[in-house]
């Protein structure tokens, strides 16, 4: 093994034209615009994601402010609807997904000993399709009729009746889809073809495995979404009848196509999060991951199953009972591999030498709250129960447990975990812990009560509500503002660490044992593994 420890290279942030063998590099803004370096691109993904997280977050604040009291106070119903729509779209496609693609860019080449991604220029394009998509999304607020108030699921026939904002949104989805497909093809190719000698598939860090599987899900599901919104577009402007019963089509058809994409999509968000957690928990337990092979198989079976359960989002559209039963049992089946994973994470900690730095805290927060979200998912999978709960706040609570306390917390865990490797600086541990506890507490204040609201029958996506829901809504809104403010602390922590963080030790986490920790200096130089390491 050629352990290469030297600090000659730069992390990102500085000039780097001292790499003579790489010829001319633009500097300033053009460096970022034209870069073909996976670390630069990963950094851009992460910052873009955070910016979108703030934009989507502001929209969430608008929603919670309006819902602080019954009656209409702050915004019009139409605007409220557009807030829920773009909050969902921006958080899913602009914040969470790009965050994990950012991790993929930074980490996959480092973890498998590759010199970069397989297609560095296409990698750049995958990122640079996101800003135009964001521009299209946001500009839909500026056109007549304003943002489309259709929900992030964009159901017909609402979508076939909206103003021009809908078209901008549709085209934004096209761009996001292109970006995801190109990014995924790049990731798959990198993993399959650029592993260092000796790095067999079953030796890959689990994070890499989860991205291989996620990328497969993306390539398989994103084109279907593109087709769905294209049909919406032609129904809107070219007189097709896909979702129009008068012409022999069916609005329910949209739901089928959307959820055929949509359920895999929730795993596209969850599976890379599983990957991060599967790196963090062993590192802070100072034990190898329990049941590595079963983790790989569990994740793969989740990926396969996730294409066979979509209609659990559609129990009330008038499906035949046989269909309801099938989708109910198939959905419940997913809980089995998910359970395997949770078991393995817990078993990894069992008799481990645990320590609780910020990444581990977020991982534990993930473990508890994601599992809770999985349980409410199981509740919703029961057709007879879901008939009652469909489109209530119970569903909102469910998916925020899996997406915020699940995916977002694991993204935080990942940022704190790899920050020293990326920048060579340490974040402020005390502030990190405060960030965790504030997030954890405010998250639960915001969303736990939403279970009660949903069980009591409060519908989602409605700006007004009955008086009996007041208390829980006020608690939820207070929690939401607390949660939003806590995330500014995160921004502060990161900026402070970049500006004046202490120098990170070579191995800040003594339990971390993947290639980027064992074979590379901290911070990782601009070019890594130009000669692949040998993995035993």
């Amino acid at each position: 093994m050629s352990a290469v420890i030297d600090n000659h290279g730069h992390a990102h942030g500085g000039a780097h034209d001292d790499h003579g063998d790489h010829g001319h590099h633009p500097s300033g803004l053009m460096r970022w615009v034209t870069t073909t370096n996976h670390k630069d691109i990963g950094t851009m993904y992460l910052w873009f994601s955070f910016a979108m997280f703030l934009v989507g977050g502001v929209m969430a604040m608008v929603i919670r402010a309006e819902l602080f009291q019954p009656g209409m106070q702050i915004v019009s119903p139409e605007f409220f609807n557009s807030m829920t729509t773009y909050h969902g779209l921006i958080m899913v496609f602009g914040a969470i997904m790009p965050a994990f693609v950012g991790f993929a860019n930074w980490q996959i080449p480092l973890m498998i000993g590759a010199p970069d991604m397989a297609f560095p220029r296409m990698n750049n394009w995958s990122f640079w399709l996101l800003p135009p998509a964001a521009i299209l999304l946001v500009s839909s607020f500026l056109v007549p009729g304003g943002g489309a108030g259709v929900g992030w699921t964009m159901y017909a026939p609402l979508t076939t009746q909206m103003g021009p904002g809908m078209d901008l949104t549709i085209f934004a989805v096209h761009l996001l889809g292109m970006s995801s497909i190109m990014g995924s093809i790049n990731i798959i190719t990198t993993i399959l073809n650029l592993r260092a000698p000796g790095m067999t598939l079953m030796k890959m860090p689990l994070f890499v495995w989860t991205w291989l599987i996620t990328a497969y899900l993306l390539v398989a599901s994103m084109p279907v979404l593109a087709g769905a919104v294209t049909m919406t577009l032609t129904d809107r402007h070219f007189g097709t009848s896909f979702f129009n019963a008068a012409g022999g089509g069916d609005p329910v058809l949209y739901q089928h196509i959307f959820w055929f994409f949509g359920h895999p999509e929730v795993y596209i968000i969850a599976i890379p999060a599983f990957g991060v957690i599967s790196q963090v928990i062993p590192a802070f337990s100072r034990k190898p991951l329990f049941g590595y092979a079963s983790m790989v198989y569990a994740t793969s079976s989740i990926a396969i199953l996730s294409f066979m359960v979509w209609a659990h989002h559609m129990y009330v559209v008038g499906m035949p009972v046989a269909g309801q039963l099938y989708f109910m049992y198939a959905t419940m089946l997913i809980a089995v591999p998910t359970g395997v994973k949770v078991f393995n994470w817990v078993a990894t900690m069992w008799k481990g030498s645990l320590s609780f730095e910020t990444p581990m805290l977020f991982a534990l927060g993930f473990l508890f709250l994601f599992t809770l979200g999985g349980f409410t998912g199981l509740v919703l999978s029961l057709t007879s129960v879901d008939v009652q709960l469909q489109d209530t706040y119970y569903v909102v609570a469910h998916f925020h447990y899996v997406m915020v306390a699940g995916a977002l917390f694991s993204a935080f865990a990942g940022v704190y975990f790899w920050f020293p490797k990326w920048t060579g600086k340490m974040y402020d541990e005390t502030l990190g812990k405060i960030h965790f506890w504030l997030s954890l507490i405010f998250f639960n204040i915001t969303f736990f009560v939403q279970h009660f609201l949903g069980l009591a029958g409060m519908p989602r996506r409605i700006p007004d509500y009955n008086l009996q829901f007041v208390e829980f809504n006020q608690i939820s809104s207070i929690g939401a503002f607390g949660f939003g403010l806590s995330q500014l602390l995160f921004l502060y922590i990161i900026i402070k660490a970049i500006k004046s963080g202490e120098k990170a030790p070579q191995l800040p986490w003594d339990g971390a044992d993947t290639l980027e920790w064992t074979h590379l200096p901290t911070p990782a130089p601009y070019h890594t593994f130009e000669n692949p390491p040998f993995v035993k």
Partner: protein
Amino acid sequence: MSNVTPTHNYYLPEPAAYPIIGSVGLLLLLGGFAMWFNDAAVGPWSSAAGLVILTYMMVLWFGKVISESEGGLYTKRVDISYRWSMSWFIFSEVMFFAGFFGALFYARLYSVPELGTLDQKLLWPDFRPDWPTAGPHVGEPFSPMGAWGIPALNTLLLLTSGVTITIAHFGLLQNNRSKLILWLGLTVLLGITFLGFQAYEYSHAYAQGLKLTTGIYGSTFYMLTGFHGFHVTVGTIMLIVIWFRCVKGHFTPDHHFAFEGVAWYWHFVDVVWLFLFIFVYWL
């Protein structure tokens, strides 16, 4: 890195401006569409500008890739990357078509029969749920497409083109350039003929009253065959490009992934057509 000499067994390109040019082009193109479809006068101009920029970018980028390839920068491992990525790209295209075929099957198996059930009789008493249909409330008369005229001929054309491109490939493998160029050229001609027939068929269908607006039958017919035709167009352009490359002496018997990638793509549009022929035209 200090104690190792970079061996660069994998080609890593320099920073490049193609992506951002492409992004600007796409933004103008799609933003232009959105304006155009809502009758804003700048729409078409914006789209046209976007298309020009996008085309310009593709010419530059593919040109760069070709010169890198001919310059010997692409090792075996790079070649394998291209193979993986092309396969997965074609898989994504398969899923795109799967969405539209799904709509077709859903309409034929569920939504149209459902509209003929007793539940709907009050609303649409006279509707008979037979395929093909324009639906209960889209009253235009139309005549459906048959399978055995031009479509069958087109099937034959595309299947033949699958054979000719394979013969061209053998020519390339045997380093028999004139065989390569001849049979590849024939493939191009077959593709163009297919497109010509398709265009003729469209105009014919339109004259007979079958339009995009002809209910679910018109929707699925034109969207499926239209996207397929678009893919054949792209495939034909790709074939033309590699034909010129062959004429210029590009490709060797053991290094010609561009040729194979185009051939894979061509077979893919071929297979999609077979499904179209069976489920859209025939059954």
